[in-house]
């Protein structure tokens, strides 16, 4: 591999890291900050990607298209469509205990995937939606700049949110729900808000993803790619710590990509299918992290109390 193709590969690689970083920041808002166990990331990821794809592609007989809107309008649309969906889901599930919420959200993600798989008029079913343009024809390198801007913007917003009174209430709910309710906070409302905001960030990630790969089908939103990798990134990086989350996205994507090289080195007779072997490795890796370092690479840091001694 000469240095030019290596550079091209790193650009491609960093684009995906950036897109996943957005997804993980969204999940961190729900789990890291509020303690909502959403394992339906793939559902909101899919809603964002499909909305953005449908809004920005040209006319077609195979799916609901032809709006031909610009890139940014597609992203805004993705977020706007996600708000009512996340609100309804959050409304129903906000009062559920953690394990019920987990079951409910994974169910929702599967149903959203089934919906895109079976409603061909909307999404072209299994054949998916091709030909989603990269905005402004910038190519991968230019797109990396756009993705970086969105990651930086999202990071900045969630950091502000986390330090704000709103974020402090969320953490209080996570750590002691009863005490927060006793302090007069409307726990259900704060939870619902965090769920919707987190889901919208995930939808934004979905929109960015659709424009990067240019083709989406329900296959991309299986629980493995859509949910599991995002969770591995969050746990490995350090849930509750936004910088840790970004680090987690990078590290886990490096590991995930190197499993491809490792799988290529193994004899096929031994591992059967390459993708299965990669999933196996990443699953074992997560188990090791959970057993040996459940707090992640960069554990959550408590913000300094205002007015505390320095």
């Amino acid at each position, binding site marked *: 591999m000469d240095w030019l193709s290596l550079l091209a590969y790193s650009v491609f690689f960093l684009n995906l890291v950036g897109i996943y970083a957005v997804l993980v920041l969204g999940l961190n808002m729900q789990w890291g900050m509020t303690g909502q*166990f959403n*394992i339906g990331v793939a559902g909101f990821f899919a809603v964002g990607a499909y909305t953005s794809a449908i809004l920005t592609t040209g006319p077609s007989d195979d799916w609901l298209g032809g709006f031909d809107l610009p890139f940014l309008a597609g992203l805004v649309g993705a977020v706007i469509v996600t708000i009512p969906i996340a609100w309804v889901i959050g409304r*129903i599930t906000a009062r*559920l*205990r*953690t*394990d*019920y919420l*987990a*079951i*409910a959200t*994974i*169910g*929702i993600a*599967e*149903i959203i995937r*089934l919906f895109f*798989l*079976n409603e061909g008029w909307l999404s072209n079913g299994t054949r998916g939606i091709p030909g989603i343009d990269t905005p402004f024809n910038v190519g991968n390198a230019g797109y990396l700049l756009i993705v970086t801007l969105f990651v930086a913007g999202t990071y900045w917003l969630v950091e502000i949110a986390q330090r704000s009174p709103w974020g402090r209430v969320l953490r209080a709910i996570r750590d002691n729900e009863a005490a927060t309710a006793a302090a007069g906070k409307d726990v259900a409302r704060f939870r619902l808000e965090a769920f919707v905001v987190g889901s919208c960030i995930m939808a934004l990630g979905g929109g960015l993803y659709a424009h990067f790969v240019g083709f989406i089908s329900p296959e991309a939103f299986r629980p*493995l790619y859509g949910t*599991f990798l995002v*969770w591995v990134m969050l*746990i490995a990086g350090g849930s509750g710590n936004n910088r840790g989350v970004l680090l987690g996205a990078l590290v886990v994507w490096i590991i995930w990509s190197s499993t491809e090289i490792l799988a290529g080195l193994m004899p096929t007779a031994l*591992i*059967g*299918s390459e*993708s*299965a*072997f*990669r*999933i*196996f490795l*990443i*699953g*074992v890796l*997560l*188990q090791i992290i*959970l*057993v040996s370092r*459940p707090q992640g690479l960069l554990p959550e840091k408590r913000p300094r109390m205002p007015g505390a001694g320095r």
Partner: protein
Amino acid sequence: MAEIAQLLINGILLGSILALGAVGATMIFGVLRFAHFAHGDFMAIGAYFALTVVTVFNLPVLAALPVAMLMTAGLAVGIDQVVYRRIRRVQPVILLISSFATALVLRSLIQMIWGSSNQVYQTGIQMPWRIGPLTLKPDHLLIFAAAAILVFLVHLFLTHTRMGKAMRAMSDNMDLALITGIPADRVIMWTWAIGGALAAAAGVLLGMDTRLHPVMGWTLLLPIFAATILGGIGRPYGAIVGGLVIGCAMELSTLIIPGAYKPAVAFAIMVATLIVRPQGIIRGSL
């Protein structure tokens, strides 16, 4: 009318498979207090264990069933000892994530060992019986009988053995059970063994009814959790009722909506249960 009757037969069939899965899931949920996301993949790997026994020793499927159940029980206890036991005291949620990882590891192992294409226990077509307008395959009766016998054995275990009673006690009231000196670690091991064995049985029966595929268990996970919650967490008898109700509802729903949305029906029932009667049909322990 005949159509509804036929769908009910299919529903009871699916329901008894779901019930076997749900009884194990509800006992694990009750004793260990977490939703075990790898339960569907226990089913799948059990079905594949039986496939190996069937092809290597050329045995009928029902003879391979006990072997597959033993192997899966061993696997479940092994996974608990190696992974879950170490994180049990950290946070229940870590266990949940870990079981999600276990699910993926098991599924990819199945793909690596047995391949990812569809497989069947027996090739060839079984002539169905025709009773008036209804059709029934001989296999269907075997599946139903096997499920009924296993459920009865679980009932005997829970009501007549010390370990079964200890398990129900831990599921009912953990603190009280521990105070009375119930050996928690042994109860947990037994819970995994029985949960794993029942999941394997459900997987084998599902494989007899349809086909073997690496995601066969994962696709039934949601209906199984629905049956668990509908029946009341930690309630084996509730799980049986829940499994039958969910199975019949999923089959009957094809009268009105496309069959592809069957999992959504199970899900809708589950959400309705959580809103209207979160403790389930039989008051659950959580």
